[in-house]
C-alpha cells in the first residue's frame, strides 16, 4: 500500500552508511551479531547432526555431539514416510499459487489503473481477508465441501489456498502496477487499446517480477500450511506438513528420523528462499502492507 514497500528490499540491500560509528563500536556489534547467529544456528545444527546419526546413536547422552558414525538410515526412513506428502504438497502448492497469482494480477491492474466507483471499499474488504483467522470460515467451508461431495483429494486445499491467497496477491500486484509509468498505459490507450488490450500488450509483459514474488509467496504459504490441511484433507491427500507432524508426534519414531523428516519437509522452501531470496523478501515486505 505504501510507496516504500516495493522498494523496501532494495533499501535493505543498498546497505548502510557507517557515519558515526567507531572501529570499537563495529567490533562490539559484530561480536553480538555473531553470538546471536550461533543461537539462531542451534536448531539447524541439531537437525543435521541428529539426522545423520544411526538409530542407536540418537540418544539423550550424545544429544549435542556430532555423530560417531555418519548414517543415512534416518534420511531413508524419513523419505519413505514423507514421499507421498511431498508429492501431494507439490501438486497442491503449484496450481493454487498460479491461480491466485493470475487473479491477483487482474485485480491489481484494475485497482491500480482502471478504478471503478467503490474500488477503495472493495480493496479494503479484500485486505481484511488477509488477516482473518481461518478458523472463522473453517466449519462452513468444511460443511460446504462435504455437502457438495468435494471432500477427498487435493481439490479442497487448492480451492482454499487459491481463494484466501487472493488478497495478498492483489495487494502485491496493485503496488507493482501503481509504479508502472503512466505514459506507457496512456500510449496504449491512444493506440486504441481497450482495458484488456492494454493489460495483455503492455501490463502483462512487465509483470514477471511481480509474478515471481506472488508465486514464491503463495507456494511457500501453501507448502507450510497446516491448518487448512488438517481440516480439509484425509490420509490419501495429506500434504507434507501433516505427515511430518504424524511422524514427529509418534512416540515410537526415533529422533534421527524425526529430524531428517523436518529437514526434508523444509528443503524445497528453504532452497527457494536461498536461490530467490530477493523475491521472497519482497513478498514479506508486501505482507507487511507498509515498509
Amino acid at each position, binding site marked *: 500500500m505504501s510507496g516504500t514497500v516495493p522498494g523496501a528490499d532494495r533499501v535493505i540491500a543498498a546497505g548502510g552508511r557507517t557515519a558515526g560509528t567507531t572501529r570499537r563500536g563495529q567490533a562490539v556489534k559484530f561480536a553480538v551479531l555473531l553470538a546471536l547467529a550461533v543461537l539462531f544456528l542451534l536448531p539447524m545444527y541439531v537437525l543435521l547432526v541428529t539426522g545423520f546419526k544411526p538409530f542407536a546413536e540418537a540418544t539423550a547422552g550424545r544429544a549435542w555431539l556430532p555423530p560417531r558414525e555418519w548414517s543415512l538410515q534416518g534420511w531413508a526412513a524419513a523419505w519413505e514416510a514423507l514421499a507421498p506428502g511431498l508429492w501431494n504438497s507439490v501438486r497442491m502448492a503449484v496450481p493454487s499459487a498460479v491461480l491466485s497469482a493470475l*487473479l491477483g494480477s487482474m485485480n491489481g491492474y484494475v485497482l491500480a489503473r482502471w478504478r471503478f466507483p467503490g474500488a477503495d471499499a472493495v480493496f*479494503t474488504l479484500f485486505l481484511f481477508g488477509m488477516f482473518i483467522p481461518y478458523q472463522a470460515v473453517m466449519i462452513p467451508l468444511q460443511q460446504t465441501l462435504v455437502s457438495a461431495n468435494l471432500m477427498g483429494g487435493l481439490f479442497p486445499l487448492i480451492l482454499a489456498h487459491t481463494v484466501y491467497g487472493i488478497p495478498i496477491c492483489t495487494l502485491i500486484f496493485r503496488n507493482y502496477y501503481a509504479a508502472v509509468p503512466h505514459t506507457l498505459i496512456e500510449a496504449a490507450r491512444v493506440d486504441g487499446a481497450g482495458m484488456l488490450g492494454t493489460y495483455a500488450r503492455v501490463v502483462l509483459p512487465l509483470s514477471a517480477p511481480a509474478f515471481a514474488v506472488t508465486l514464491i509467496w503463495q507456494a511457500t504459504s501453501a507448502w507450510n500450511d497446516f491448518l487448512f490441511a488438517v481440516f480439509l484433507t484425509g490420509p490419501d491427500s495429506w500434504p507434507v506438513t501433516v505427515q511430518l507432524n504424524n511422524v514427529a508426534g509418534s512416540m515410537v519414531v526415533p529422533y534421527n528420523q524425526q529430524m531428517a523428516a523436518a529437514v526434508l519437509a523444509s528443503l524445497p522452501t528453504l532452497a527457494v528462499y536461498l536461490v530467490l531470496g530477493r523475491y521472497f523478501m519482497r513478498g514479506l515486505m508486501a505482507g507487511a502492507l507498509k515498509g
Partner: protein
Amino acid sequence: MSAAGGAAPAAPSPAPRRRARRGAGRAASWLPGLLLVSPSIVLIAVFVYGMIGWNTALALSDKHAPIEEGSFAGLENLAALWQEARWPAAVANAAVFTVFFVGGALLLGWLLGLLLEKGIAGEPVLRTLFLAPMAVSFIATGVVWRWLMNPAPAERATGLNALFVHLNLDFLVNDWWTAPDLGMAAMALPAVWQLSGYIMALFLAGFRGVPEELREAARVDGCSEWQVYRHVVMPQLRPVTLTAVIILGHMSLKVFDLIIAVAGKQIAADVPAVYMWTMVFEVRDPAKGAAIATYLLLAVAVFVVPYLVWTVRKERSEGR
C-alpha cells in the same frame, strides 16, 4: 510514485485535465474493470464474508451435533465458554504467549536491525541466516524445538537441558512449556526464533529509510550518536513498529500449528485454536467450535480493522 490511473471519483485527482477529458462515458470506462475483478469479488464475498456470516450464525445457534438442525440461541454459547474451566485457561495461555512472542520478536528484531543498519562485515550472510526460519513451516520448527525444550530432568535430559548440564549451567535446567505458570513464555521461544528475522527486515528497511541529512543535522547540533537514535531515528520508526505489532499480534492470537507440533493436544499448552479443533473433530460440537472461532475473529478484528481503514485513508490523503 504517480497517482493510480483514473483515480476514484471521490479522490483528489492530481490530474484534473485528464479527468475532464474522460468525463463523458464514465461508466463505459470503469465497467470493464469491474467485470475483470468480479470473479474475485464473488469468491471473497462468498468464502470470506459469507462464511464468516454463516459461522457467526452457527455460533449463535444450539446446533451441538453435526446432524442436528439447530435454532437460534442468542449469546448462549459465547457466554457458556466463560463458565467452564478450559476456555479461560486457553485464553490465559494465548495471552501469555502473545505477550512474550510479540514482545520478544519485536525486541530481538529491533536489536538485529539496529546492529545491522549501518552495514557490517558479512551483512548479507547474517541477514540471510536470521531470516531463514521464515521459509520453514511452524510444524518443522516445532519438531526441533520440542526436542530442544524436552522437560526431562537432568540425568535423562535431552535438548537444551542436556546442553545446560553439559556446560555446568544446571541452574538453567527447567520445565520449559510444561511449567505451570509461565510455560507459554517458553512456547513463545520457537515463534520468536522464527519471526524475529522478519521483524529485523522491517526495522532494517525503516532504519535505512531515515534520510541521512536528518541524522547529520542532529549531529551538527551536537547530538551524540545515542541522542540521534533517541530523538531522530526512533520517532521515525513508529509506523514500522505498529505494522510489526499488527503482524505478530494477529499471528499470535490464532497460533495453532506450533502448539500442535510442540505439545500436541496437551492441556498445559491449550489455546483457543487448539480447543476449536478438538470441538470440531473430537467432541463434534459445531456451535461451540463456531463460538470459539467467533472470539478469534473478534480478537483479530478489533485491532486489524482500524489499522486497515487508517492505512487506506492515509494513502488516499497522500494522493496515491
